[in-house]
């Protein structure tokens, strides 16, 4: 509970300071928030249910391509129907996860890692080869952000607030989920799946539902991602994108939701800010991966919680 208040306080400060920040900083912050949504969805799977997925970028990709195709081929989603696209993007992410989940949920541990990796690569393969739909390696260029009755999302500050809104909504939704009985049973599955089964829980179904929900939020992140960048390409769905998402959660602290946001901040900072300052930023990135794993088992949040995982 306390962490929630701290988070809200921090975000409030950021939101208040935003109009005074440089435009590039606002862009970076928006990035952090969108990736934060994605990271939270990964945290749901990893931190709470104990399922490490190497293919979550697939759902971001589905949401993003969906948005882009609707916008460019059908001119849809550029006004108030943008909100409809959000819902549809989440549905698309959920549907994909529902389909993939049928293959993936039977596995666990390493095998789950592998199968989600493979599924992610399938999506990449489709994005890359299905030229007529996805534009192939050129990707799809968005023609501009939506205008909602005069509210121009093309204005970066406005878009930032919109993204912030979606982040908060996602955060609270997920918070509600993990503190519900369903959420608690997910943690139970993570800790002692066998026991849960003995107790009569349909663990497969629980895991499956978590997987689908994660896919939905991944799709949401994808919709925002498409508008944030103005372009969607197969690069968004590559393996490193999924690995980054995992890192964000592990770095920030699995099982905390907030950890996802913290991790996203660090990774975005490294990739997009440090990279502009020094050429050796990739060493730092690699080192962060390595050091986090070795010395921060509970992530950054673990430092605050005094080691409670």
């Amino acid at each position, binding site marked *: 509970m306390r962490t929630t208040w701290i988070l809200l306080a921090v975000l409030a400060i950021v939101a208040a300071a935003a109009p005074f920040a440089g435009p590039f900083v606002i862009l970076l912050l928006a990035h952090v928030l969108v990736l934060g949504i994605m990271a939270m969805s990964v945290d749901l799977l*990893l931190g709470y249910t104990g399922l*490490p997925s*190497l293919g979550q970028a697939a759902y971001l990709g589905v949401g993003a391509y969906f948005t882009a195709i609707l916008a460019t081929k059908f001119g849809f989603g550029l006004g108030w129907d943008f909100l409809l696209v959000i819902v549809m993007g989440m549905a698309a992410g959920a549907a994909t996860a529902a389909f993939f989940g*049928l*293959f*993936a949920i*039977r*596995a666990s*541990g*390493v*095998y789950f*890692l*592998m*199968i989600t*990796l*493979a*599924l992610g*690569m*399938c999506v*990449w*393969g*489709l994005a*890359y*080869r299905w030229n007529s739909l996805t534009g192939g390696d050129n990707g799809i260029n968005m023609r501009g952000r939506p205008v909602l009755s005069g509210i121009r999302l093309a204005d970066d500050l406005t878009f930032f607030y919109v993204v912030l809104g979606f982040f908060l909504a996602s955060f609270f939704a997920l918070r509600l989920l993990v503190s519900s009985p369903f959420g608690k049973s997910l943690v139970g599955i993570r800790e002692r799946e066998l026991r849960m089964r003995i107790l009569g829980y349909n663990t497969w179904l629980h895991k499956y539902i978590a997987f689908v929900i994660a896919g939905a939020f991944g799709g949401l992140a994808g919709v925002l991602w498409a508008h944030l960048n103005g372009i969607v390409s197969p690069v968004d769905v590559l*393996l*490193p994108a999924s*690995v980054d998402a*995992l*890192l964000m959660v*592990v770095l920030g602290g699995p099982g905390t939701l907030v950890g996802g946001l913290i991790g996203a901040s660090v990774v975005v900072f490294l990739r997009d800010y440090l990279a502009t300052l020094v050429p*050796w930023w*990739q*060493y730092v*990135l*690699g*080192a*962060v*991966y*390595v050091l*986090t*794993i*070795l010395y921060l088992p509970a992530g950054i949040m673990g430092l605050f919680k005094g080691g409670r995982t």
Partner: protein
Amino acid sequence: MFNGVSYGALLFLLASGLTLIFGVMRIVNLSHGAYFLLGGYVAITVIRATGSWVLALPIAALVIAALGLLVERIFLRPLGFDPLRQVLLTVGFAFLFQQAALDIWGGDNLIINPPSALSASIAVGGLHLPIYRIFMIGLAVAIGLSLWFAMERTRIGAMVRATVDDAEMARGVGIDTSKVSMMIFALGAFLAALGGVIGGAFLGIYPGLDFEVLPIAFAVVIIGGMGSLAGAAVGSLLVGLADNFGKALFPELAYFSLYAPMVLILAMKPTGLLGRE
């Protein structure tokens, strides 16, 4: 068809190391591609310094094996069995290696040229078969057989198998499982590096190659069965042939045709075709 087999041979070199590491240590080694690439780079340095390709093979492989050993000893060992952490750790190293390779060798596409003896082709019944590809198949078979022999027929092999089957029991019987793990990891890196040198004539050596070969290596290991050498052999052959035929027959689905079967196999038999759990 011959091409499929020779491609499969290369994959076997790449995948055998990966499957051993996984089989024995349950480590998901995402830096395996980096070892492959670094093997190629070290070989290039050796060739530039000595002009000898034959010398480059063992030197590159041993250097990378040593590197793998260090990584395992210092970084992986403390982690214990935790697939997620291993993934992230090995990815971190892959990034570090990739950047270092870029800084040391530059980003040009390099080629490892085998001695001219191996560069010709022989004509067999109307087909031109490059000798180098025959060499690749031969080498893969030789390595496969020696590994199999070592595993099945030697005492060390028995120790390895015991560690794979049940590490605790193995320790109970007095086998130094940590030494075994170390050895296997080094061997895996050795094989990957060897693959890099051999493949370097074929694929070229350039930054990004590490992450390109990685998913394919995993596909082979998964399809064939993690931890099983025979599985790696079967998997490499299957993937090599499927890749060949897939590309010739269904070019649109090129990438898809690799990963979709992987998903199906994993869904049905998570341990792969010949894997054991």
